[in-house]
């Protein structure tokens, strides 16, 4: 068994663990919204946006500004998805895998915390 096959087997093992975990917990999704709620983006890690919600008032900002706002909010949603993925997989993967995820473009940043049911921060 050469190095590539060994790597493929390791990826398959981790994938199976992650699939079982996601089957229990549901998909990992990141969300972000512009400050005035004009644009909201929901996305999975490493994937295109799953949903883009635009408020009726956002159409007044003009086509160019709306496009730029979608790009900005989508970047924050992607960062949120990556952070949630790190948090979700922390118990399944070793630190090396976590580091590898960061290296390939999924940084373990902060989670967007303005989507709770209440504005009060929960216990830590």
């Amino acid at each position, binding site marked *: 068994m050469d190095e590539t096959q060994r790597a493929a087997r390791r990826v398959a093992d981790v994938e199976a663990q992650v699939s079982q975990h996601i089957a229990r917990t549901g998909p990992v999704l990141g969300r972000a919204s512009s400050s005035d709620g004009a644009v909201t983006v929901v996305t999975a890690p490493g994937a295109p*946006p799953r949903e883009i919600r635009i408020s009726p008032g956002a159409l007044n900002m003009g*086509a160019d500004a709306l496009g730029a706002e979608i790009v900005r909010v989508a970047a924050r949603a992607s960062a949120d998805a990556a952070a949630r993925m790190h948090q979700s997989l922390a118990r399944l993967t070793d630190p090396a895998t976590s580091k590898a995820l960061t*290296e390939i473009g999924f940084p373990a940043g902060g989670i967007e915390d303005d989507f709770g049911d209440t504005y009060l921060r929960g216990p830590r």
Partner: protein
Amino acid sequence: MSVQEERISAADRLTDVLARVVGTATHPSGLVTVTASAVGALKAVRIQPAALGQGPDAVGGMVTETAGLAVDAAVQTSYNELAKSLGDSMAMAIEDFAGPSPFARRAEAEQHAGPPTPGSAPQPGSAPRGGLRPPEPSSRPTPTIPGDPPRAAPPQPGRPTPPWAGQRTGAPRSRPAPPPEDDDDDDFFADPFRGQRR
């Protein structure tokens, strides 16, 4: 450079290619164009002013749909670049754990779905996924071989449609399956006394 060093270098290049390569797709209405990376990051969203008249939900839907196609285009370009610089065998090894390319997935899905039925024809305003035009037609030309007849002719009005009429003619040919390994002992059993002949 040893084989292992070459593979480590290939893995590093994969990360670089995925981060660098972008794809662009345009909605069939021409109202939305999206540029995205292979890992799903939106780089640019251009919305025509006329799109805003269709309402917020329609604009959001068009951007979402076009973004998916732009990412598919970027992933396909990444595979193409890898195959070009590393060779088919290394690209296939990477496909083993990264999954098939978007074109291969789409071709497989269409093969499983079978030929389209007349009732499933897309409506003009519905903007189906498969109906979107590819982002960079000039970069993925349909391969044509001189003397090679077209694989599927347009249906004639008076003729019955052949079963293979639903196959895509514009899709690139999928990579042929590797030949099966010849691990049997046919040669030995064909002439078991060959070692004892003088």
